């Protein structure tokens, strides 16, 4: 059997089931609880990789053979003993704006209270709607939706991919265009991780890897890494691939302003470096 380690949230389980079904009939799920799940504190106080570390430790201890993560949670630093053996085809990477009336951002009344714990979402939302009040919200997708329904918040922002994987409905009006809200680097993609020395397993997992997704998220994550690789960074980045040309859109919010980059190259790493140079230059000049 191939033991697929996952967090216990409904979304994590849905993602892990998706991966397990693609690995084959011999894959079974093993639920591991992580520091991010146990804590009520905001993710950025727990440090990068709060959701990831416990699964990685389970891989190292040999308790699981494969770990499934949301790629945006996985730190960009290399690990010698673990490898992201596959990044399957990406789901829609955009964010959703979910309000109690479910009418999207346009229908949000002036001065509304929006719950998000992501500095990126908060900064881009404030830029689009300076009137709204942003406050910290914690919990998984269902908890956040419940808090909005209960009136604790007027709205929240969630990854479209998460709702789709959970089979939850949403309207087109709720999708935030990337011109308003660029997703986090790697958002919508899954990381299938295993031990570097598990050569046979890597051969099987490698078949699930999608080259276009891998190249695109590599550019996004290389940019994040160049800029300091922290989840406190209000960075949005989205790469799209057409043939061998990679187009990277990125936006970095700092000191009340937003620096934007749009460029294209065939080399994902060169493109990321260009974006980092440009965004770094603009934000340093402020």
């Amino acid at each position, binding site marked *: 059997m191939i033991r697929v380690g996952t967090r216990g949230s409904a979304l994590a389980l849905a993602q892990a089931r998706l991966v397990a079904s693609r690995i084959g009939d011999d894959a079974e799920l093993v639920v591991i609880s992580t520091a991010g799940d146990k804590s009520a504190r905001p993710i950025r106080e727990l440090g990068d990789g709060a959701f990831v570390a416990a699964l990685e430790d389970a891989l190292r201890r040999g308790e699981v053979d494969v770990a499934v993560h949301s790629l945006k949670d996985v730190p960009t630093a290399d690990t010698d003993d673990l490898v992201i053996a596959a990044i399957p085809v990406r789901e829609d990477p955009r964010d959703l704006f979910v309000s109690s009336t479910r009418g999207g951002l346009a229908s949000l009344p002036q001065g509304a209270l929006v719950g998000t714990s992501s500095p990126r979402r908060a900064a881009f939302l404030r830029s689009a709607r300076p009137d709204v009040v942003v406050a910290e919200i914690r919990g998984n997708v269902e908890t956040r939706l419940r808090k909005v329904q209960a009136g604790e918040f007027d709205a929240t922002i969630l990854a479209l991919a998460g709702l789709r994987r959970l089979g939850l409905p949403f309207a087109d009006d709720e999708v935030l265009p990337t011109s308003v809200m660029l997703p986090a680097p790697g958002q919508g993609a899954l990381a299938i991780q295993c031990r570097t020395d598990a*050569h046979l397993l890597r*051969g099987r997992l490698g078949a699930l*890897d999608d080259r276009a997704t891998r*190249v695109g998220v590599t550019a996004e994550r290389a940019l994040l890494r160049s800029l300091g690789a922290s989840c406190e960074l209000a960075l949005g980045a989205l790469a799209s691939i057409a043939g061998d040309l990679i187009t990277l859109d990125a936006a970095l919010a700092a000191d009340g302003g937003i620096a934007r980059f749009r460029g294209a190259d065939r080399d994902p790493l060169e493109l990321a470096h260009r974006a980092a140079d440009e965004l770094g230059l603009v934000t340093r000049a402020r």
Partner: protein
Amino acid sequence: MLTRDDPDLAALLMARGFSVVTLPCVRLEPVDRAALRAVLVTLAARDVLVLTSPAGVDAVADAIDLRAVPCPIAVVGRATAKRLHAHGRAADHIASAPTARRWRASFRCQAVRSSSRAPTVRSAIFPRRFARVALECAR
């Protein structure tokens, strides 16, 4: 007649009384670095990176950090292994001759010896056009 551009060897031969005509049959050109990079960032999902010459090692080293390559590296010939070592990475497999049959036999042999290695290669990257070997290995 020297079929490669090797001034050191030509000088050595001339010093020993040979008359040397150099007629290079191989010309090295810079690789398309962007295209190479776009392939090399997918190495984590591959079984092996095959480097077939010291020049190939240098080309890949110019594109990425060879020490951080997340899959085994197989090389053809000791000179290639030595160049790889100079870039800070040891070869995981060394084939003694650049023929498809020899490479495959060598890889399989080492694969069997080291139980943690995959005995067959499903997915490999060959910076040089070495497709016949790839096909043979995939069988």
